[in-house]
């Protein structure tokens, strides 16, 4: 059987890619995609831990389903906010959102 650590490494890599995308991307839609990657990393973690640590209790699986739901809700709200910004100023580039500053 594949050891648990392999899954955790994949998850950690995915999380890091998401984190990098969030910090490096300038487009708000791409940032949203990066957040989704991070949430998928969480899901890999949860399911792997469930399978290897406590296969008899379904808490990890149930949790992963909730994370999926949360990710969907977050994407819906995020896209709605992105559209409302785009309507105001024809841009979704993070640096151009600079009305509010010090």
């Amino acid at each position, binding site marked *: 059987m594949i050891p648990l650590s392999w899954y955790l490494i994949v998850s950690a890599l995915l999380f890091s890619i998401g984190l990098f995308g969030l910090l490096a991307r300038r487009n708000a839609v791409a940032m949203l995609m990066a957040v989704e990657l991070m949430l998928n990393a969480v899901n890999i973690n949860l399911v792997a831990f469930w399978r290897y640590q406590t296969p008899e209790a379904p*808490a990890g699986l149930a949790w992963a389903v909730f994370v999926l739901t949360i990710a969907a*809700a977050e994407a819906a*709200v995020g896209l709605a906010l992105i559209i409302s910004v785009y309507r105001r100023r024809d841009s979704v580039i*993070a640096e151009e959102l600079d009305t*509010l500053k010090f």
Partner: protein
Amino acid sequence: MTPSISLENVLAILPDLALLVLLIAVIVYNGLIADDDDRRNVGLVTAWGAAIILFGMLLLAFIYPDYSMQPTLHWGGMVVAGPVTLSFRAMFLIALMLTALLSLDVPELQRGSYFALLITATIGFDMMAASADLIMLLVALETASISLYLLVGFNTRSRRSTEAGIKYFVYGAFASAIMMYGMSLLYGVTGSTNIAVIGTMVGNAFAGVVPVEIISLLLVSAVMLVAGFAFKVSAVPFHFWTPDAYEGAPTVVTGFLSTASKAAGFAVFFRVFSAGVFGYPEPGRASWAWWAMLVAMCILTMVLGNFLAIWQQDIKRMLAYSSIAQAGYIMMGLVALLKSQGDDVPSAAGGGAAIFYLLMYVFTNIAAFGIIVLVSRKSNSTQMKDFYGLSRRSPWLALAMLVALLSLGGIPPTAGFFGKFFIFQAAVEADLWWLAAIGILNAFVALFYYLTVVKYIYLYRSDDDDVRITVSRAAGVGLAITIVAVLYLGIFANSAYTWAIEAAQNFVQF
């Protein structure tokens, strides 16, 4: 295990069920009103609903003291009822009621969905304060956060509001993704999702020799959880969203965001960390590391919040930085509580002080933002100069703002003084007198910028001295409640504090 629903189970989430009914009522009622009619009544239904639920909940707690004073687990260990849950729920319902009242005169917020989102966010806060399980906590936190993203960006006609909404959303999604990753690691280490069970397991593990990889995983997880919670309470270094979101959001929403959301963030912060999920801080132990990190964050939050607030020319932005600083004071309560939990005789003083502080902060800050709503309605801006000569334009509003600012600054006849006093007392009791000293020095810095606003209100003149500010009855009632509560909590602080300390015993025992 056969699933069964007992009366106690239902009682434990009764306020949330009632809020759900209110939510449906508001949506249905909003649908019955013609599109071009005014939505004042929808807001009134929300405010009255919140008031009725609040009184019902307190009445129930009064009739069944066992139910209110004993922490009990319900719904398979998902929800914890008890005095801590009760006190936080009371704060959220008060915040909902006052926010709904103050929103009535804001034309761009007169939409049914606005009030529905306010109630949804309150349900999320309620469940956050009541959650005893990581899954429950996560779902509740996201319910609240997602509603708040929409509320901050609600005014889609305004460049500022939409920009604030998307900034809050990006930072929020970022912080919650990190927090979820930390929680998944915690689940991996312990194999449980129940906060109390994890606390016991980690406590037992720390009694023996712990493998270094477990300790490092726990530390990584602690840092990630702190990042998520610190975002919710806007503590440095996770405060970047605060000034932008607070300035851009509709002012009423800012009031709601800065009080209820902060209180809910601290509720979960206290719940998770006081359960010993990462062990209790003792010198030489690994758990000392995250505790020291919390102390550093507490100091940074106070200092940075207060010093950046001095330079602000926009009053909403100034109050945003002030609210960062206030989060620092409340974190001092958390730090003191956690430190004393490592001692032989744990003391609940830090938790009690924080609950009292949050309660008084709900009233004070909603009052301050409510007054900003009324003053800025004519000028449509929230610059400091809009407050010049406020005492001539509306003496009562000026007086109310004076009380709110004095309370934020911590001057005696108001609740803010005792809030700070109890926090510093708890810090000294936990042998953190140096932290209390930093807090006191910070309180003096804070006084400077609060009193500057008082100076603008009473001593400065403006060109439209003779332009009266009209206050509608709903807003007047809302503001009167807050000001009376601030003065009441200031004069009779002891009764509320005794209750808060008794409630906070749960943090220690549970």
